[in-house]
C-alpha cells in the first residue's frame, strides 16, 4: 500500500525549506543590539565571517524545516493507495458532476430559487472525495460559473452569489455548456444534474442537442403546477398619418396563462409616467385579447410608454410592458410579380404588411416594364420571380438603384437566367445558374449565415438557431465572383463593401442570399422562392423577421423599434446611429478604431450606470435588466438623444411545463428506447451501480485524513519553535 497525493503541485512548497536554512546561514541571530563607539577594531577580526556561515541553532532549524515540510505535505493531500483491484473499482466510480442551474426570470416565482439552491447543496453533500463538481447557470445563455473542482465548497460558495435574472429560459444552452465540461472530463462516470422549473418553452425554443454517450442525466424539478398569470405579452404600434401628422395607436396584447390566474384586470396605459387610458379586460383560461388604445399624436420627440395590469385586488400583475413611441417613416415598396394566379406572393405580402414596426406601403405591378417616373417615390423594388426587365426599363431601374433605391430579386421558376439581359450581369451580385433539386425528404437548410451583417445581427445570441429550421428543396445556383485581392491587404475594406458578398449559404455551400452595392443603392438576390413551393421557409416563424430585415436593409431604412427584450443583443453602433450621434449612411467607426476615438455616446441604464458605447470594441451589448435606457452624448447636459425600452422575456410567464422524463428521453444520445434507464436514474437521482466502489470512496475520506495529522504536527513544531526561539537567553551582559 503506497502513498499518492491528490494535489502534488503543493509539494513544490518543499522548496520553502531552503528559506530557513539560508536564513540560518546568512543571518545569525542578532540578539540584543548594543551601540558601540566604534567597530574599527572588530571589523578587522576574521573570525566573524567564519561564524556567519555556520548553523549554530540546529534544533531551531530542524523545527522550522520540519514544520514547512509537514505543511507542504498536508496541502498535497496524501492518500493511502489501494490495491490494484480496489483501485480499479474506485477509478470506475469517480464522478464528474455538473450542476446545471436555471436562473431565468421564472425561477423568481415563489420559493423556486431557494428550493433550487437547496437541491444543489444536497447534491454537493452527496459527493465523495475525489468526485469533481462544477456549476453551470443558464437563462438565455449558458455559462460556467465554477470550473470542475475537487472542492465542493467552492461550488456551494458560488451558489450564494447567484440570483435569478430577467432572462428567458434556454435549457439547451445550459446543457450545451455542461456538455463541454463532461466531454473534456476523464472521469468514468459523468453526471449532469439539471435543476429547473422545466418550462416547456425553455426547451422548445432553444437548441436541442443530445447529450454525449455515457452521460447520466439527473433532473431536479423545482417548478409548481397550476401557477399561472395574466400578463401583457406585446405592444404593437399602428402608425397612421392624419392631416400631415403622424399618429400612433398602441395595441396591447394581454394573455392569461394557467388555471389559477386571475380572470379580470384593468389594462392601464401610461405615457411619460402619466396614466393616459384604462381599459378592463376579462379572459378565459389560456385566453388572449388585444386592447387598442386611442391614437396618440406624436410630438417631435419620442414618448416613453408602458402598459401594466392591475388586478381587482389592486395588485399589479407582472412587470409593466415598456415601449417607446417615436415618429416613423413609411417604407414604400413596389412589388412586381407575375400574372394573377401565377407567382402570387401571399406569404411575402403578409410578411410585409404585418402591423408593427415601420409602416409599409405596398404597390403591386404585374410587369417589370417601368419608367423612371413610375419608380420615383419607391424605396424598394421587389422583383418576385419575374424576368428582369430589358431595354429602357432596365436602364430606369438601374438608375433608380444607383440613386439610392433598393432592389430585391427573388429567383424562382420564372427566373430564367438565359433570358436576362446582359446589361444585368455586372449589376447583380452573381451570375444565376441552373436550379438545384435537393432531396424532397430532407431538403437543404441555411448553414452559413453572416451574423455580423445588419440583416442577421438580430439573430445573434441564443435563440438565433431558428434560421436553420426551414427546409429548402429547390434553389438556383449562383456564381458569385471572387473579390479582387488587393496588393495591400490593409486596403481591402472599401472594395469588399462595394463588391458582391454572400450573406447566407445553404448546407451545400450554394449562396442563398447575396448582396452588392451599386452607386448609392443596394441589390440583394435571394436564390429560392419566398413561397411554399420551393421551401417551407414561409411556414416557419423565422420567415417574418428575415423578410423584414432584408427589406429594411435593401431599402436602407431603419425600423423604429419600440422595445427590446432582456439579453437581446444590441449593436452599439446601431444605438449611436439611432441617437443621431453617428449620421445615418456614414461609415461607423470600425472596432479597431474605437480605441483612438473620443467618447461618442453613453448608454445610461435605469439604475443610473453608464456604458461607453464607443469603447464596446465591436462587441454586442446585452442589457440585463428591464427599464428605459438612454443614449446620451457626453457633455450634453445629460439630455437623452434616444431612449430604448427593455422588457423581460414574456415567455417566462408561460406556465406550461415539460415533463423531466420527456426531457431525459429527448436528450438521450441513443434515442428514446435506450434512454429508459437513464431517465429512470434522472427521475430518482439514485445510483444503481458502483455501490461497492462508492463505499471504497467513502473509505477514501479516512484514507485521506492524513493531512489533518500533518497539520497538527506542523502546529506542534511551530509552537515548539516559538518557545525555543523566545526562550530567555543571556544578552549582552556588561562587566561591572
Amino acid at each position: 500500500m503506497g502513498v499518492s497525493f491528490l494535489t502534488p503541485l503543493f509539494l513544490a512548497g518543499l522548496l520553502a525549506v531552503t528559506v530557513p536554512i539560508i536564513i540560518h546561514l546568512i543571518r545569525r541571530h542578532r540578539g540584543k543590539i548594543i551601540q558601540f563607539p566604534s567597530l574599527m577594531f572588530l571589523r578587522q577580526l576574521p573570525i566573524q565571517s567564519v561564524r556567519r556561515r555556520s548553523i549554530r541553532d540546529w534544533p531551531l532549524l530542524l523545527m522550522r524545516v520540519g514544520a514547512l515540510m509537514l505543511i507542504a505535505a498536508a496541502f498535497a493531500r496524501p492518500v493511502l493507495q489501494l490495491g490494484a483491484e480496489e483501485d480499479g473499482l474506485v477509478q470506475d466510480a469517480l464522478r464528474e458532476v455538473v450542476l446545471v442551474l436555471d436562473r431565468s426570470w421564472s425561477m423568481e416565482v415563489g420559493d423556486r430559487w431557494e428550493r433550487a439552491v437547496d437541491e444543489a447543496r444536497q447534491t454537493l453533500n452527496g459527493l465523495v472525495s475525489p468526485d469533481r463538481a462544477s456549476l453551470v447557470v443558464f437563462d438565455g445563455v449558458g455559462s460556467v460559473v465554477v470550473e470542475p473542482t475537487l472542492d465542493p465548497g467552492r461550488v456551494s460558495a458560488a451558489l450564494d452569489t447567484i440570483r435569478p435574472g430577467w432572462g428567458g429560459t434556454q435549457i439547451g444552452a445550459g446543457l450545451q455548456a455542461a456538455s463541454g465540461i463532461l466531454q473534456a472530463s476523464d472521469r468514468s462516470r459523468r453526471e449532469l444534474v439539471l435543476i429547473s422549473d422545466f418550462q416547456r418553452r425553455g426547451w422548445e425554443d432553444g437548441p436541442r442537442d443530445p447529450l454525449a454517450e455515457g452521460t447520466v442525466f439527473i433532473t431536479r424539478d423545482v417548478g409548481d403546477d397550476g401557477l399561472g398569470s395574466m400578463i401583457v405579452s406585446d405592444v404593437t404600434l399602428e402608425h397612421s398619418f392624419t392631416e400631415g401628422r403622424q399618429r400612433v395607436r398602441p395595441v396591447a396584447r394581454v394573455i392569461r396563462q394557467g388555471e389559477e390566474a386571475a380572470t379580470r384586470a384593468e389594462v392601464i396605459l401610461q405615457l411619460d409616467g402619466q396614466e393616459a387610458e384604462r381599459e378592463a379586460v376579462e379572459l378565459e383560461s389560456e385566453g388572449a385579447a388585444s386592447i387598442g388604445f386611442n391614437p396618440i399624436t406624436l410630438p417631435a420627440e419620442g414618448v416613453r410608454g408602458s402598459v401594466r395590469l392591475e388586478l381587482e385586488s389592486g395588485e399589479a400583475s407582472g412587470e409593466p410592458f415598456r415601449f417607446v413611441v417615436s415618429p416613423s417613416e413609411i417604407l414604400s415598396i413596389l412589388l412586381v410579380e407575375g400574372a394573377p394566379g401565377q407567382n402570387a406572393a401571399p406569404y411575402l405580402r403578409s410578411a410585409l404588411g404585418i402591423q408593427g414596426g415601420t409602416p409599409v406601403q405596398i404597390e403591386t405591378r404585374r410587369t417589370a416594364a417601368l419608367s423612371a417616373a413610375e419608380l420615383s417615390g419607391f424605396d424598394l423594388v421587389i422583383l418576385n420571380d419575374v424576368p428582369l426587365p430589358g431595354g429602357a426599363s432596365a436602364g430606369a431601374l438601374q438608375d433608380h438603384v444607383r440613386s439610392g433605391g433598393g432592389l430585391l430579386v427573388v429567383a424562382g421558376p420564372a427566373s430564367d437566367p438565359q433570358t436576362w439581359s446582359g446589361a444585368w450581369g455586372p449589376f447583380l451580385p452573381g451570375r444565376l445558374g441552373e436550379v438545384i433539386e435537393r432531396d424532397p425528404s430532407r431538403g437543404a437548410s441555411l448553414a452559413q449565415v453572416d451574423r455580423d451583417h445588419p440583416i442577421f445581427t438580430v439573430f445573434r445570441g441564443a435563440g438565433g438557431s431558428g434560421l436553420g429550421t426551414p427546409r429548402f428543396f429547390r434553389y438556383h445556383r449562383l456564381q458569385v465572383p471572387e473579390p479582387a485581392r488587393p496588393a495591400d491587404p490593409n486596403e481591402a475594406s472599401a472594395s469588399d463593401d462595394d463588391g458582391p458578398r454572400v450573406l447566407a449559404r445553404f448546407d451545400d455551400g450554394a449562396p442563398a442570399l447575396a448582396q452588392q452595392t451599386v452607386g448609392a443603392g443596394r441589390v440583394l438576390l435571394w436564390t429560392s422562392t419566398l413561397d411554399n413551393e420551393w421551401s417551407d421557409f414561409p411556414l416557419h416563424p423565422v420567415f417574418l423577421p428575415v423578410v423584414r430585415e432584408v427589406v429594411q436593409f435593401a431599402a436602407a431604412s431603419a425600423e423604429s423599434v419600440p422595445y427590446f427584450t432582456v439579453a437581446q443583443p444590441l449593436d452599439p453602433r446601431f444605438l449611436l446611429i439611432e441617437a443621431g450621434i453617428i449620421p445615418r449612411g456614414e461609415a461607423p467607426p470600425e472596432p479597431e478604431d474605437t480605441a483612438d476615438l473620443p467618447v461618442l455616446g453613453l448608454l445610461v441604464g435605469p439604475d443610473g450606470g453608464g456604458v461607453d458605447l464607443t469603447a464596446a470594441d465591436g462587441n454586442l451589448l446585452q442589457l440585463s435588466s428591464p427599464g428605459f435606457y438612454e443614449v446620451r452624448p457626453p457633455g450634453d447636459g445629460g439630455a437623452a438623444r434616444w431612449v430604448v425600452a427593455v422588457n423581460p422575456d414574456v415567455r417566462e410567464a408561460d406556465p406550461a411545463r415539460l415533463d423531466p422524463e420527456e426531457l431525459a428521453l429527448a436528450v438521450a444520445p441513443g434515442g428514446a428506447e435506450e434512454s429508459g434507464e437513464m431517465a429512470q436514474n434522472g427521475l430518482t437521482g439514485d445510483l444503481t451501480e458502483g455501490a461497492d466502489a462508492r463505499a471504497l470512496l467513502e473509505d477514501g475520506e479516512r484514507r485521506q485524513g492524513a493531512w489533518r495529522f500533518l497539520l497538527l504536527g506542523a502546529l506542534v513544531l511551530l509552537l515548539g519553535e516559538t518557545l525555543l526561539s523566545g526562550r530567555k537567553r543571556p544578552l549582552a551582559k556588561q562587566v561591572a
Partner: protein
Amino acid sequence: MPAENAWSKGRVGPGAQFLDPVALQRIGSLELVARGVVEGFLQGLHRSPFLGQSMDFAEHRPYSPGDDPRRVDWKAYARTERYFVKEFEAETNTNFTVLLDCSHSMDFGEQISKSDYSRYLAACLSFLARKQGDRVGILTFDSEVRDVVPCSARHLELVLLTIDRARPERKGDFALALKDLASRRTRKGLVALISDLYIEPEDLRRPLNQLREIGNDVMVFHVLDPAELDLPFTGKFTLEDMETDEILPLAPEQLREEYKKLIDEHVAQVARVLTSAGADHVLVDTSRPLDQTLFHYLLARQERKRRGRWASLS
C-alpha cells in the same frame, strides 16, 4: 556625583555642576605646577608686579640701594649677616584652550558616559586654569567645529556654559578640528584635547605638529570606557557603530582577546605618536574617579617638570 552637586540644586550658575568640590579641593593643593611644562610658564616666569599669596619664592639676591626694605629676608641675615632680598615668581598668564570632542561615540558608557566624564574634566581644567590666572577658552567639535570661545580672563563662565551645552550627537572628525584650531591660534598656550581618539594614530601627527610649531603645549586626554578596553559582553548580540550605524552580529567571547590586543596596540601607538610630537598622552579610564585622574596627571606633570629642571641644572 553630579546629581548631588550645587548646580542640580539650583543654587549656582550653569557649568558649575562640573566643578566637583571634592575634586577641586584635592587638586587645589597641587597649585598649577603642571603649567610649568607650558612654554608660557617656563619662559614667562616673569616677575610679578604684585605681592601676595599667589606668589612663590624663587631665589635670593644681594640687597642693593633702592630696594624695598620690607623685602629683606631677615632670617637669611640672621644666618649669614648679609642682606638678601627675596625674589618671587608669579604665575604665568597663558592661554588655556580645551578641545572637547562631542562626537556621537563619546556618548558611550555604562556608569557614566565618556561625554559626561569629558565635560567634567574640561570644566575642572578650565576652572583650575582660571584660578591660576590663565585665560581660558574652549572649542567643541564633532564632524565640524561647533562652538568656539576665544581665550580670555573673563570667559570662564562662557566656557562653562559652552561645556554645559555640548551634547554628543553627530559623527566626529577631530583631525578637522585640530586643523581648524591650528589656523585660529595666533598666541601660544596650553591645549587640552579630550577625545576617545578613534582615529588612525598617524593622522594625529600633522595637526599636532602644527600646534607645536606655533608654540603650544598639548595635553591629550584619551578617554575610554572600560568596556571599550576589555569588551566584557557575553552571549549573542549585535554591535552597532554609534557613528556609522554599521551593525555587526557577533559572539564577543570568541573575539575578546584579539580585540584587547588591538585596542592596547592602538593606545600604545597613539601614545607613541603623541610623545614623538611633543604632546602628553593620558589614558583616562572613566571608571576611575575624576579627581584621581587629574591628581595623577598633574603629579606626573609636576614630576616631569622637576626632572626637566634638574636635567637643565645638571
